[in-house]
């Protein structure tokens, strides 16, 4: 059931044996621009974090093709249950850098009202990009449930759950895939094997030979795809999506890729990542590979590349400036959205907080910095 051969479309020189996709030039360039936007967003966030203007961010360098290739296989009516290293999927479907930057600054325009840490996005439109939580793997059975709801209603939509190599050890992975296997739910499980879970290499995450094989434990077909090859990811996810829409159940996809940065801005990967390994993977940069392909197709020139990056950086920087100037959430946001209706005890606690502030002055922010 498990395909043990790594699916690949674009070779390292950007060549494609046989044109297997039906993407127009515009669509291809949209994928490209999205990948560049991810990288630009990362770069700007890193600088913002290093200069103390935001507390934390999560780099995506190296995994852009997996995110964007997967997103390109989904319709707006599908649901995404993302991990924190997946925002390229949101960008692909039209979430703006500004919407994201509001979250990075945790300001009052953030969809989570500054309640969540940076990179814990939540979007409803233009696609369900379901509120990210930190605990690893919890969203996997949730995706199965959301998909099952679609199935019970006879809709042909699917849910995509994305998680890391580390995520396969979580409890949610086991229960999610097990339920999906029994229910034949329309879910696509996308395991992004980026080789590391913070400082733990994927070889210490499991004794199995890769992650795709884990599908068999649940009666779910598993496939391995070259995660640095946008077209291969798209093709593989699309096949899984179509299978799910046909009512044939779920698929586990292992996208083999590489986290070229640290785990987060709090992490120093030089403490544990072998230098040669990083160098080896740097040569497989998914964006460079896609550029070569586009160039062969006559859609790309170095100038275009520069311009796209320039535009992306400007858009993200403008978003950062705007987000930085957006006021923080209001004090009342601490108390709302715990329940739909504010219960009496929270009304009281909120009032007391306001009263105290007027009596004793406002609370002052500490200088606590996120440590990882």
């Amino acid at each position: 059931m498990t395909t043990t051969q790594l699916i690949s479309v674009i070779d390292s020189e950007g060549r494609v044996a046989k044109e297997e996709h039906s993407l127009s030039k515009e669509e291809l360039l949209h994928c490209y621009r999205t990948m560049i936007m991810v990288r630009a967003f990362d770069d700007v966030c890193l600088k913002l974090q290093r200069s103390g203007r935001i507390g934390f961010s999560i780099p995506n360098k190296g995994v852009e093709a997996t995110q964007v290739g997967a997103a390109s296989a989904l319709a707006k009516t599908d649901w995404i249950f993302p991990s924190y290293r997946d925002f390229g999927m949101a960008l692909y479907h039209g979430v703006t850098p500004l919407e994201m930057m509001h979250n990075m600054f945790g300001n009052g325009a953030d969809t989570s009202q500054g309640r969540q840490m940076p990179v814990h996005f939540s979007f409803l439109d233009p696609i369900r990009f379901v509120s990210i939580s930190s605990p690893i793997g919890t969203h996997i059975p949730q995706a199965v449930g959301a998909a099952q709801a679609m199935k019970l209603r006879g809709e042909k939509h699917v849910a995509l759950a994305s998680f890391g190599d580390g995520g396969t050890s979580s409890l949610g992975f086991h229960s999610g895939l097990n339920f999906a296997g029994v229910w034949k739910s329309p879910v696509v499980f996308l395991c992004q094997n980026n080789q590391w879970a913070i400082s733990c290499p994927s070889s210490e995450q499991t004794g199995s030979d890769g992650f795709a094989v884990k599908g068999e434990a649940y009666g779910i077909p598993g496939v391995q795809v070259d995660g640095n090859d946008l077209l291969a990811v798209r093709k593989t996810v699309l096949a899984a999506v179509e299978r799910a829409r046909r009512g044939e159940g779920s698929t586990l996809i292992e996208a083999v890729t590489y986290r070229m940065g640290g785990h987060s801005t709090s992490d120093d990967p030089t403490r544990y990542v072998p230098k040669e390994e990083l160098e080896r993977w740097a040569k497989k940069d998914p964006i460079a590979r896609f550029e070569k392909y586009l160039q062969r197709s006559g859609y790309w020139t170095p100038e275009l590349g520069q311009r796209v990056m320039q535009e992306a950086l400007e858009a993200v920087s403008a978003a950062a400036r705007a987000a930085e100037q957006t006021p923080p959430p209001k004090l009342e946001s601490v108390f709302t959205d715990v329940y739909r209706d504010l219960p009496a005890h929270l009304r009281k606690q909120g009032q007391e907080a306001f009263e105290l502030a007027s009596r004793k002055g406002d609370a002052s922010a500490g200088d606590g910095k996120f440590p990882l």
Partner: protein
Amino acid sequence: MATLTLLQAVNDGLKTAMRKDPSVVVFGEDVGPKGGVFLATEGLTKEFGKERCFDTPLSEDGIVGTAIGMALNGLKPVVEIQFQDFIYPAFDQIVSEAAKFRYRSGGQYSVPMVIRTPYGGGIRGGLYHSQSGEAYFCHTPGLKVVIPSTPHDAKGLLLAAIADPDPVLFLEPKALYRSVKGEVPEHEYAVELSKLRTVREGTAVTVFAYGAMIPVCQKAAEQAAVEKGIECTIVDLRTLLPLDEEGVLEFAKRTGRVVVVHEAPRFCGFGGEISALIAEHAMEYMEAPIVRVAGFDTPFPNTLEHHYMPDARRVLDAIERVASF
């Protein structure tokens, strides 16, 4: 009106909700053809089909996790955890996810769902078929926690829980499943959440309790009245979270003498919250120490469970001590 046991009232509540609202689905371990190990879901698969009442693999994490996903996407799952003791594999989903979804998404996503589960002792179930874990969940903002003690409330609170826009943990006192009977309207009705119920009125002592401790407190109160002339008010808290705090303070102030009763271990139990609320907001009214009668701070034993669980004897003793202070 039909006279039903608490268990039948739960079953009736489920059927009533499923008849009215096609988005209600019921699932869990053995809830399908078998009808649940206590038969709370008996007949559901037959009436509503296995698309709406079905068994799952043996994973509470999976049950609650998938229920959250369904709730996010328009269904109204009412899941069963076979015994409350087995809810802990789902603790992460409940505490980290269900309770926090609305808050963390600024209201974009919410998880209206109900987790039903039998709790408490009295059936010789030992460590793992007797626990009362309500305090864990009451310390979790974002959840609602409901415990009925009569058939009428069981149906009415369950229907209110199912109609609620937020996740509700619905704890059913298994010791009362078949031992209490009462009149239950056949139609749909709701007992409003976060409103306590006065079981009995008396001016000497106020007893706060819930679930299977209500009949125990009633027995003790009868004895106190008959044997010592001490008249107690008994308050059934019913919804533990969000608690009717004003109501609690009001009833505490009326007598100035308070006993709090639950089965769960005393230390950091729900009773502590009641005592603390009163000690903070009604201290001036107190004429006696606030006494808790609770399970001991040990795991739940089997053979000696009747020593472990508060009985009328222990509650009466506390009432007498508080009344005569």
